[in-house]
C-alpha cells in the first residue's frame, strides 16, 4: 500500500542521500560552488544571492568548528558564539584603534580567540553535561556585559564599523565575487583541516572522551589536555569565522555574541548530522538557502518565524533520529587498513588454494 511504499522510499532516501556522501557528489558540489559567480550575471539579485552564500560560507566554518568540539569531543558548549565575537571584536578594535591592515588583524583575531579558549576552558573542564551547557551559555552574556560596560571603546549596541576587505574594488558585484571566493577558500582549507583532525588519532581520542572519560583515563589519556585542545581548535576556527564576518558585513556588533548565533551552529550541525564535520558544511548552505530563499521569497514567511521553524525541525530531527556517530568515525584511516587486510586475506586464500592443488598433485604422483 501507499504507506509501505512511502516507508521504503523514505529509508532508501536516508541511506542513499543522507548517508555518507560519495566523493563524487562532494566534488560536484564543490565545482558548483566554485562556478557560481561565473554563472551569475551582475544584477542586484545576484549581489544579494552572493551575500547569502558568503554568510553561509562563514557560518559553515563556525558550525564545523562547533561540530568538532561537541560532536566529536563531547564538550557540550552552548556559547560558542563567544569565540566568534572575540574574533570579530579583536579584528575590529585593531583596525579601528591601531590601524593594522586587514591581513594582520585576522590572524591576530584568531590568535586571541584561541588563546582565550584556555582560561575559558579550564572551569569548563571540571563541569560536565548540563552544567557545562549552562556555564557555556552564560559566557557570551558575560562578554556582552563587558562590551556594554566599556561602550566608549566598543561602540555599545551599535558596535564598531569595520572597513571593507577589498577597498580597492569599486564595483559592488565584483567586490562580492572577491569576498565570496575568499570565504570559499578559507572554508575549504578549514574544513579539510578540521576533517583531518577528526579522522586522526587525536580525533579518535576525542571520541573516546565523548564515550567514556573514565575509560579514556584508564587508557592513559590525559583527558584534561585533550579537552583543552578541543576547545582551542574549536575556538580557533570560530574566531576565524568571526574575524572574517566582521570584515565582510563591515560591522562588529553585539550580535556576534548572541545566543541565537550559538544556536545557529547547533541547528546547522544537527541538520547535517552531528559529528560528521562535512555534514555541518553541507547543511549550512541548505539552511541558508531555505532561510533566505524558500522561506523569505517563495513561501513568504515573516522573519521572526524563521528561527522558530528551524528549531522545531531540529527538535523533530533529534527526537526521531538521535543519531549515533558510529558511521563516520575514523573511516578514512580504517578504510585503508581494511583494504590492506582484504589484500592480505585474498593472498592467503590464493596461497591456500595453491597449496591444496600442490598437495593433491603430490598425492596423485605418489
Amino acid at each position: 500500500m501507499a504507506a509501505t511504499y512511502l516507508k521504503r522510499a523514505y529509508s532508501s532516501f536516508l541511506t542513499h542521500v543522507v548517508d555518507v556522501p560519495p566523493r563524487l557528489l562532494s566534488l560536484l558540489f564543490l565545482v558548483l560552488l566554485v562556478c557560481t559567480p561565473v554563472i551569475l550575471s551582475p544584477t542586484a539579485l545576484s549581489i544579494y544571492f552572493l551575500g547569502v552564500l558568503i554568510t553561509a560560507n562563514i557560518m559553515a566554518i563556525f558550525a564545523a568548528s562547533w561540530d568538532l568540539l561537541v560532536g566529536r569531543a563531547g564538550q557540550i558548549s552552548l556559547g560558542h558564539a563567544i569565540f566568534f565575537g572575540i574574533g570579530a571584536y579583536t579584528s575590529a578594535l585593531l583596525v579601528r584603534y591601531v590601524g593594522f591592515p586587514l591581513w594582520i588583524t585576522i590572524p591576530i583575531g584568531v590568535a586571541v580567540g584561541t588563546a582565550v579558549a584556555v582560561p575559558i576552558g579550564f572551569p569548563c573542564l571540571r563541569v560536565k553535561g548540563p552544567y557545562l551547557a549552562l556555564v557555556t551559555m552564560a559566557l557570551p552574556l558575560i562578554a556582552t556585559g563587558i562590551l556594554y560596560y566599556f561602550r566608549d571603546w566598543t561602540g555599545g549596541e551599535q558596535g564598531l564599523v569595520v572597513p571593507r576587505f577589498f577597498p580597492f574594488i569599486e564595483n559592488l558585484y565584483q567586490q562580492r565575487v572577491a569576498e565570496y571566493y575568499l570565504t570559499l577558500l578559507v572554508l575549504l582549507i578549514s574544513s579539510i583541516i578540521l576533517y583531518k583532525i577528526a579522522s586522526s588519532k587525536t580525533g579518535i581520542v576525542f571520541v573516546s572522551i565523548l564515550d567514556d572519560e573514565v575509560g579514556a583515563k584508564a587508557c592513559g589519556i590525559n583527558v584534561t589536555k585533550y579537552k583543552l585542545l578541543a576547545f582551542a581548535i574549536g575556538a580557533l576556527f570560530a574566531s576565524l569565522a568571526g574575524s572574517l564576518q566582521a570584515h565582510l558585513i563591515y560591522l562588529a556588533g553585539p550580535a556576534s555574541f548572541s545566543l541565537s548565533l550559538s544556536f545557529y551552529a547547533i541547528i546547522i550541525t544537527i541538520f547535517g548530522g552531528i559529528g560528521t564535520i562535512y555534514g555541518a558544511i553541507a547543511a549550512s548552505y541548505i539552511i541558508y538557502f531555505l532561510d533566505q530563499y524558500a522561506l523569505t521569497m517563495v513561501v513568504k514567511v515573516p522573519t521572526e518565524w524563521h528561527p522558530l521553524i528551524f528549531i522545531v525541525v531540529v527538535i523533530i530531527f533529534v527526537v526521531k533520529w538521535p543519531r549515533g556517530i558510529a558511521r563516520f568515525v575514523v573511516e578514512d584511516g580504517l578504510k585503508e587498513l581494511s583494504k590492506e587486510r582484504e589484500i592480505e586475506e585474498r593472498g592467503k586464500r590464493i596461497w591456500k588454494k595453491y597449496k591444496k592443488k600442490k598437495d593433491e598433485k603430490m598425492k596423485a604422483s605418489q
Partner: protein
Amino acid sequence: MNLGDKALIEALLLYGAIAGAVYALLALGFTLIYGVAEVVNMAHGALFMLGAYMFFAFSLAPKNPPLWIASPFALESGWALIVAIIAVGIVGSIIYVLVINPVIKDALASIVVTVALAIVFQQAVYIEFGGVHRAVFPFVEGSTTILGVTMTYTKLLAFGASLILFAIISLFIGKSKIGKAMRATAQDREAAMLMGINTTRICMFTMFISASLAALAGILISGSTTQVATPQMWLTPLSMSFAIVILGGLGSIKGTLIGAFIVGYAENAVALYLPGGSFLKGVVALAVMVSVLLIRPKGLFGKRIELEE
C-alpha cells in the same frame, strides 16, 4: 535603591527571604523532575517565563486579546493565576511525553532538545507579544511597612504562598500514594516499572507539577519583584535553579529549600550593595554553581556519589 544605610540591611533581610521562598518553589520543580525522570530540564526557566506571560495574557483587558489564546475575556487575577499555572503544567506534560521522553537516554540529545524547547517558547512568546518588556501588574494592591521597609502585599503574599505550597508538596511527596510512586521511580526506574508503576505517567505528572511550580514562580516574581516580562528572561531562572539544586545537593528537598534561601540572599545582597547589581543576578547564580562544583560537588546534602577522583 535609595534607602539609607541602616535600611539596607532590613531590606536585604526581607527581600532575601521573599526571593528565597519563591526560588525554593522554582528549584523544587527543577529538582523533582531531575530526581524522578533523571532529566535536566533546560527549559525550566522558559516555563517560568511562560507562566509570567500566560498570566499577563489571561489578565489582559478584552480589547487586546492575544491572537490564539482563546480567552476573549479578562480574568480576575486569581483565576488568571490558576489558569496560567494549569496551562503551563499541561504544556510541561505534553513536552515531556512528546519530546523529552523519547530522548531521555541520550545525554546530548536531551540537553539540545530541552534548550531547543526553551528557544521555541522564547520565539513563540516573542512573536505573540513582541520583544518589548511587558508590564505585569501586581495582583494585590497596597503595601505596608515592616522594619522600616516598604513591603507590598503582593510580596508578602508571594512569600507566604511559596512557603505553604512548598510544605504541601513536600508532604504530598512524602505521604501520598502518588508521592510514593514518584519516589520509587526516582530511586530505580526499572524496578518501579516491575512493581507495576506506570513510570511514564508518573513522570508526566511530575512534569506537570514541575512546570506549574516554575510558572507560579514566574508569576510571583514578575508580579512582585521585577514587574516585567521579556521573552529572554528564561536564562536567569534556569541558572538560579541549577545553582540552588547543586548547592543544596542533588536529590535533597531539604537542601533545595536551604540552597534557595542562600542564593536568594546572595542575589539580593549583590543587587543592593553593588552598583548595577541587578544585571549581575545571573552571574551570582553561575558563580555559586561553579564554586560548588569546584569545591564540594556533592553540595550541602547531596546523595549521589559518582566514580571520579
